[in-house]
């Protein structure tokens, strides 16, 4: 019976693709399946959240166009937690008890996610993680699957430091923002450095709302490091790069960057322009990385993003949020059920093909094969966001699998290189 209905719907779905009949009709008989989440759409994480949301909405539209999940229309319920973790427990209980959603997706980032982990575990619900960091390490919920292309802290800086090592560096300076994510980045880097013979010549955390970086950059320069690892907030990237340009770091610096959050977001990249040149920084995707279907995704994404006045490139979060949808889709279609236990089971056992490549998970529900890249910015012009669409503006230098070119050192030379 169910099978038959699905048949009808698939044809219905096909027809609807051809002659776009209002979706609602296609799903006349069956109740929709509810997928719910809270996404920071305002506050500190708002910019990223809004972009991510477009990625998810695109998946919802696509899957509904294909006839939904098991013939049921996907209904997507989103609330805004204002980037404030204090709001999420309430929101997720509402999703569970009032909206009665079938599948939960976590909010973007760690702070809003951490408070809902125990709740979700208590209820034995599947939770699709969203670019949070090691949030399950303590809670150990076996139905958690993070879409982020990283695993533990080390994965972050390995590539960056390796590049430094190849350039013969022996000393490193670290400065990081006093914030959750940035601190985790920096701690990862510190860990790696511990296991090398490098000496850590400068290591400082700086506060949010820092007006001027002159004195920090000055003291970094005084420490004469060969590698400078920066873990900053999007809001500080501009100020930092300016000060670097003004004060200078000294000719001995081989590579600079590493964990600068924000260099993935178009507004920041655009306002930095040529200041970006030479910086080596982590990313989740840069043009030129070959994934099936991703070009098409970004073509469609950019249209919607510009209409919605959010990050028009969206390299960082959107494709991975679309991938989250694909994971759900594949698991549901394979298991023919919405039963969270069995879905989780499937996700743990199988590799899923997504627009960001094949994804498989370890026992903590983090990526078993991290796929972070370190890329170096090259010949960037000022005030032009379209340029970032083209390969060669951000050259992947690590890992080998995705490598697009060799890192240019030292930093001063890399800044001028074209």
């Amino acid at each position, binding site marked *: 019976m169910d099978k038959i209905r699905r048949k009808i719907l698939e044809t219905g779905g096909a027809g609807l693709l051809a002659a776009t009949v209002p979706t609602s009709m296609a799903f006349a008989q069956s109740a929709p399946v509810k997928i719910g989440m809270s996404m920071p759409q305002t506050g500190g994480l*708002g910019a990223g959240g809004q972009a991510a949301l477009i990625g998810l909405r695109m998946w919802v539209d696509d899957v509904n166009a294909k006839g939904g999940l098991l013939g049921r229309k996907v209904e997507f319920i989103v609330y805004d937690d204002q980037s404030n973790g204090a709001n999420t427990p309430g929101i997720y209980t509402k999703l569970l008890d009032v909206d009665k959603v079938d599948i939960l997706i976590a909010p973007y980032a760690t702070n809003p996610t951490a408070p809902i982990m125990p709740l979700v575990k208590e209820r034995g619900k599947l939770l699709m993680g969203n670019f949070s960091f090691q949030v399950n390490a303590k809670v150990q919920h076996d139905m958690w699957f993070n879409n982020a292309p990283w695993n533990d802290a080390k994965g972050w800086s390995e590539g960056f430091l390796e590049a430094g090592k190849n350039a013969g560096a022996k000393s490193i300076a670290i400065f990081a923002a006093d914030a959750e994510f940035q601190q985790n980045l920096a701690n990862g880097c510190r860990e790696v450095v511990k296991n090398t013979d490098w000496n850590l010549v400068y290591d*400082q955390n*700086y*506060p949010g*709302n820092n007006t001027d970086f002159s*004195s920090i950059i000055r*003291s970094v320069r005084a420490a004469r490091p060969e590698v400078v690892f920066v873990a900053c907030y999007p809001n500080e990237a501009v100020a930092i790069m300016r000060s670097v*340009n*003004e004060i200078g770091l000294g000719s001995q610096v081989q590579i600079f960057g590493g964990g600068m959050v924000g260099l993935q977001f178009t507004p920041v990249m655009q306002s930095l322009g040529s200041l970006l040149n030479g910086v080596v920084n982590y990313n989740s995707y840069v043009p030129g990385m070959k994934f099936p279907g991703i070009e098409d995704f970004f073509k469609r994404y950019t249209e919607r993003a510009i209409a919605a006045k959010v990050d028009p490139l969206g390299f960082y979060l959107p494709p991975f949020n679309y991938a989250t949808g694909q994971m759900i889709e594949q698991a549901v279609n394979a298991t023919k059920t919405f039963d969270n236990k069995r879905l989780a089971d499937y996700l743990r056992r199988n590799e899923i093909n997504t627009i960001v490549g094949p994804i498989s998970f370890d026992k903590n529900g983090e990526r078993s094969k991290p796929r972070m890249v370190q890329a170096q910015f090259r010949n960037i012009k000022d005030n032009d966001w379209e340029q970032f669409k083209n390969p060669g503006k951000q050259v992947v230098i690590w890992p080998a699998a995705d490598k697009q070119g060799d890192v240019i050192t030292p930093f001063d030379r890399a800044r001028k290189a074209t």
Partner: protein
Amino acid sequence: MISLDLLFEAVLFGILLGCFYAAVSLGLSVAFGLLDVPYVAHPALLILGSYFTFLLSKTGIDPIICGLLLMPVFYVIGIALYRFYYETFERRSSDTGVRGLAFFFGIAFIIEVCLILVFGVDQRTVSATYIGSSLEIGEYRFPYRMLVAFGIAIFLTTLLTLYFSKTFNGRAIKAVGQDEGALRLMGANPVKIKQLAFGIATAVNALAGAMLIIVGPVEPAMDRIYIGRTFCVVVLAGLGSMSGTLVAGLILGIAESIVMMTLGASWAPAVSFGLLLLMLGIRPQGLFGR
């Protein structure tokens, strides 16, 4: 561990930073210091000034010019704001304490949220030839944007000091703080004078706002930290002393800069607020207060 020349440089940066702090505090020094209005919305208007500058500068006008062009606008805003404050609170003298504070706190909040609604949470910057490069004197390098801040601070301070000492209205404003009766004898209307002063205080904020976005990127919620910084400077200075404001700004700037280079940057925010508490505790009348 910290070398002497580095410390020396910390002081130099501190001076530039300090002038910047002074400049953003001058308006408050008038509104709160002289007129005794609990103007907690001051930093919010500062940020507003930055955003207006951001909009104007899109047309290619130099941010400093933008700031100057905005001054009359802000002057009017200030007048209106004070009028409103006077009519609703001072006149009715319905305890200005709680309600006045709540009023300005609310205003600040509304400005902040409106900025977020219009511009979003991500930062805004302006570009100008002097942003991003620096003046090199031997070993030392001074960012031009900080030198601009330095210039603006000196300019505004001298301007206000002269205005308050040389002109009739200026003296009247200084007087209104102490004794309204005396002012009436001078044949001036205290309300008009206060209104004028408040207009000036807010106008100054326009230029200061322009300077803020020249010095660094600006985001809507920034006003919160500046509540502390500006009030710290004004209290440190002793209410209503312009030159005092400059000195207080310098003290704060140098202190922060040194902490950043030595003890560790992450402790910097505590400096201004710590100083403030200390001051309130031991010498509430400020360094130059009567």
